[in-house]
């Protein structure tokens, strides 16, 4: 039995997350991945923005900063620059990272700074009651799209890939074991890494769109998931509404803080 307690601030429980929310599955997966790598709790600095997923930093016994909406990656950049030896992990959501914080997301990927972003994609602003996010699927309802969204969505993983990230993967809370491995790889990667996790919000997204309970939504994620390998032989039409999962990018690229250190050493004539 895995000992989650040693990583948690037990005096901070209970969690604020609703019954049926997938965020706890991601939290546990992340802790298992951290444990497998063997990082000490003090080596980790975890930074979050605003939203349900971002409340995670309050529960884990690492160096944790709970910052402003959309800015977690920018804060983490400051931490990583002055503490390159630390493992810096950002916990964020679809709205936090790709709406209000979209600019920081793409620029951190462009710099390829060694930060791991665990991005909880629940297709909605859950904490504030279910407003439209950049990943709310076309036609789905939100409190600010009561007649269904008429907007296109972001491909969050594709965005990180295009912007230059070293590691990009997408998993689901259904496939939690696969998710462990993906998060582990992402943290181990020297460079900007993104793990986009599809996670259900039964309260603010599921109920409004009649998607059933949290368990129903997780089952649906299983139905909708298609591996990258399988997806490669499917047509765009067949892929409509599917969630392609797997590792999209896993490259060795020059990393920003290392490059910066090299410059300093060169200029100081070491």
């Amino acid at each position: 039995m895995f000992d989650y307690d040693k990583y948690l601030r037990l005096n901070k429980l209970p969690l604020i997350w609703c019954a049926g929310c997938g965020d706890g599955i991601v939290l546990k997966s992340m802790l298992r991945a951290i444990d497998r790598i063997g990082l000490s709790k003090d080596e980790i600095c975890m930074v979050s923005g605003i939203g349900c997923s971002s409340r995670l930093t309050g529960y884990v016994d690492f160096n944790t900063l709970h910052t402003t909406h959309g800015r977690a990656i920018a804060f983490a950049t400051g931490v990583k620059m002055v503490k390159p030896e630390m493992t810096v992990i950002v916990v964020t959501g679809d709205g936090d990272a790709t709406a209000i914080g979209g600019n920081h997301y793409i620029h951190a990927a462009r710099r390829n700074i060694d930060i791991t972003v665990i991005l909880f994609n629940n297709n909605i602003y859950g904490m504030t009651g279910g407003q439209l996010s950049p990943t709310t699927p076309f036609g789905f309802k939100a409190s600010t799209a009561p007649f269904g969204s008429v907007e296109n969505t972001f491909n969050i993983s594709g965005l990180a890939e295009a912007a230059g990230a070293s590691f990009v993967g997408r998993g689901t809370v259904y496939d939690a074991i696969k998710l462990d491995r993906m998060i582990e790889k992402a943290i181990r990667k020297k460079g900007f890494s993104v793990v986009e996790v599809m996670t259900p919000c039964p309260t603010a997204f599921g109920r409004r769109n009649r998607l059933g309970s949290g368990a129903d939504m997780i089952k649906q994620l299983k139905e909708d998931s298609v591996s990258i390998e399988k997806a490669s032989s499917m047509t765009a039409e067949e892929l409509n509404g599917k969630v392609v999962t797997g590792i999209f990018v896993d490259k060795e690229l020059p990393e920003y803080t290392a490059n910066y250190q090299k410059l300093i050493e060169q200029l100081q004539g070491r």
Partner: protein
Amino acid sequence: MKADPKGVLTGEHYLDGDHACAEGALAAGCRFFAGYPITPSTEVAERYVSRIPMVGGIFIQMEDELASMAALVGAAWGGKKSMTVTSGPGFSLMMENIGLAAMMETPCVVVNVQRGGPSTGLPTMVGQQDMMQARWGSHGDYQIIALSPASPQEAFDYTIKCFNLAEKYRVPVLFMMDECVGHMTEKVVIPKPDEIEITPRRLTKLAPEKYLPYKTNGDLVPEMIVAGTGYKIHSTGLTHDERGYPVMSPGTQDQLVKRLCDKIKLNADDIIEIEEDQTEGAEVIVMAYGITSRVTLPAVFKARKKGIKVGYIKMITAWPFPEKRVRELAKKVKAFVMPEINLGQMVLEVERCAAGQAKTYHVPHAGGWVHDPEDIYQVIEEAVK
């Protein structure tokens, strides 16, 4: 403690205020700078980045001012003295995270080389129009420290003071330069490192299991830690208790926000620095700050020649406002005169503190240029009547 010699360019220099500010930051031990280009402040960043790798520190040009201010706070929690530099539009973008820095009690310095506004305004020309934004720009209740230099030498000296105050009170300190001071070139004397007093970070000596990140010990300012040194604390922009944990209650908010304000308000005497000249026995006192404090001098001299008893106060500290001194003087003088390059900002504080006991005259000037000293003189003449 004394300044780290690595950052101190001891000697006589011919520098503009922006460059002097960068040298002040380096002398103060600032080792992290996140910025975004904006006129007329960019020279601070350019000077800093051309020096910092050799000194041993980091400069990063972020994607915008929101990110700059965020990275700054992150770096401060990573243990570095950190700064950013901007002007009006960027200052507005930084406001949210200036509030976060105040809430998390993060020492850092934000320099605003003021230009004419609102909006894009007069990007290359002077203004003193962000003085109230400095005080009230972020949301919620908090107190801030803001200083204003009047020369490149002061840009150097008071940048160091900004860093020292930021550390002492764990608060973002705003350095409200103006375009004239930023772009004016004069002699700047940089002292030897052992002549520069530096306030180190107030790091706790308590063991991690005994340490509470927001518990104070008598003086209203909690001790800090550096991430990755065994303390594993949580810091949040939410209303929090002594453990740093979010507590959504009016009681906790009351305790926290009052302390955030009190740590500045109750230490105002220690923080505030003003220069006075012939204020005793004066009939009229002219108060000014930044470039306007220099433009005012010919008007003061002329009035004195004409036999008017004019006192002069140069405000180095804008926030907290030197309330106590103005209240004292209001009982003795006929009037205060305040010229500033805006249509009425700091003068509202003078008026509030004079509280009807002395009259208050404003000498407004829109952005773009400094006052004609004669305009200030005319108001002094009227005020003494």
